[in-house]
């Protein structure tokens, strides 16, 4: 296809071509998912590798983010005598924003990079070509299960991150700083709405899961088959995923909370 003059060698043309091929690739992956779902063993193994093995970093981070939120929140709220609202501040920040975003950033660094490196290395060592020659489609066998595993794992990791964050807030706020336990939990229960707060977090986590998995498998699959190419794919996965998560979080927040 001939592009208009000025676009032929520009950055924009490169970007558009990149997005185009990534979208075609995503469609191929999505088409493979029904077949992938017929082989749950492959997906479960990948959920273990990208999800279960991320638990430690997600749990510890969630706990500390909740504890810091409680400390900062308490110091500010106590000036207005509103420290009873600490639970709401911690819970809403985590459910709406910090849970999905921080967990997604950690997931991109921990699992996205690993998936891109693994697929890239399989390509560099001809393993993907060998599969094609054995009439096994690497999109079904390698890419699909990893993509689906990311899509399943991130929402669960976000839920765990958020829950531990709220618990961390409780430990600092209630146990250490003396906020009333009944107020902490009661205010969360009365102020947090399922549709606005919990559901928005779930939607964000699913979108981020899809985004990071897509970027990771695409970068790995299209990596140049050299050591440098694989290293570039790994770095690109983390950089592009992080920027995309932050940018898309802004868009999603704008869409979901514009009526507030």
């Amino acid at each position, binding site marked *: 296809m001939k592009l208009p003059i000025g676009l032929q060698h520009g950055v924009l043309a490169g970007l558009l071509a990149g997005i185009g091929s990534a979208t075609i690739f995503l469609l191929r992956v999505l088409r493979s998912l029904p077949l992938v779902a017929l082989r749950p063993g492959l997906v479960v193994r990948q959920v273990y590798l990208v999800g279960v093995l991320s638990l430690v970093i997600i749990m510890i981070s969630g706990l500390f983010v909740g504890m810091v939120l409680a400390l900062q929140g308490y110091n500010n709220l106590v000036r207005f005598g509103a420290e009873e609202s600490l639970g709401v501040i911690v819970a809403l920040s985590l459910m709406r924003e910090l849970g999905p975003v921080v967990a997604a950033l950690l997931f991109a660094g921990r699992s996205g990079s690993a998936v891109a490196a693994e697929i890239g290395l*399989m390509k560099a060592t*001809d393993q993907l070509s060998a599969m094609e020659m054995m*009439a096994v489609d690497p999109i079904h066998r390698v890419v699909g299960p990893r993509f689906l595993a990311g899509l399943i794992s991130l929402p669960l990791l976000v839920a765990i991150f958020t829950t531990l964050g709220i618990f961390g807030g409780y430990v600092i706020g209630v146990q250490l700083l003396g906020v009333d336990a009944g107020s902490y939990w009661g205010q969360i229960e009365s102020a947090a709405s399922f549709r606005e707060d919990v559901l928005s977090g779930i939607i964000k986590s699913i979108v981020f899961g899809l985004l990071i998995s897509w970027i990771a498998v695409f970068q790995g699959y299209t990596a140049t088959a050299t050591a440098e190419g694989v290293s570039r794919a790994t770095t690109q996965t983390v950089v592009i995923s992080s920027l995309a998560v932050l940018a898309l979080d802004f868009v999603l927040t704008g869409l979901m909370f514009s009526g507030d």
Partner: protein
Amino acid sequence: MTQHDNLVELSRVRFLRGDRPIFDGIDLNVAAGSVTAFLGPSGTGKTTLLRLISGQLRPASGSVRVDGQEVPQLRRKALYALRRQMGMLFQSGALLTDYNVFENIAFPLREHTDLPESLIRHLVLMKLELVGLRGARALMPDELSGGMARRVALARALALDPAMIMYDEPFVGLDPISKGMIVRLVRLVNDALGLTSIVVTHDLEDVLQVADYCYLISQGKVMAHGTPEALRADDSPWVRQFMRGEPDGPVQFHYPASTYAEDLLGERR
């Protein structure tokens, strides 16, 4: 398969990499049941030829027929059905590094059949016995030597009992004993299993021992073809240079460049 005299037929195949032609109207045939060698200096696109035959690459023009089917026109499903009849041995072996030797050979069987585990075990052990590595079935790919990895890859390529097998530089980087084993296996496997074999190599002496027919390829063209004896007797300058390994001749030692004096005295680039 194999009802045609020629299992593989390439006619007037052009293939470009960017604007650079790799093949410029190449014609060649591989007779069913034979061991055919594609020979040529490094970088002449011999591996590309295998990728064209297996449908991993498409030619710019011309016809690539395998078992009477026009490969570039096959849709994915038909292409995969054809590939189940082809085995390919990659230069690196390309074993799946997360699986041990046994699982690597079982991989195509598990992917394409619903055979019970006991039968898969028998088939895998049979293939391993053929390449002499039954005792190495529990090893991981990183525990194998180069020659062993290639024999495992051969066993894997044979797992689905293909009609044809393609070897990409099977002799490169092997010690004389391992190389001798692979040379012997190429012939043995071809004759014992009634296959058609294509061997891509620049390793002249080894392949002339096993090949029934050879194509000498260079500069995007078939420079000569014939039986090993006919090629040895060929007196054209190019064939003579290649067969005798002379450093200079029609294939020049120097990559095309301006004169050395011009480079030394001219502008620095």
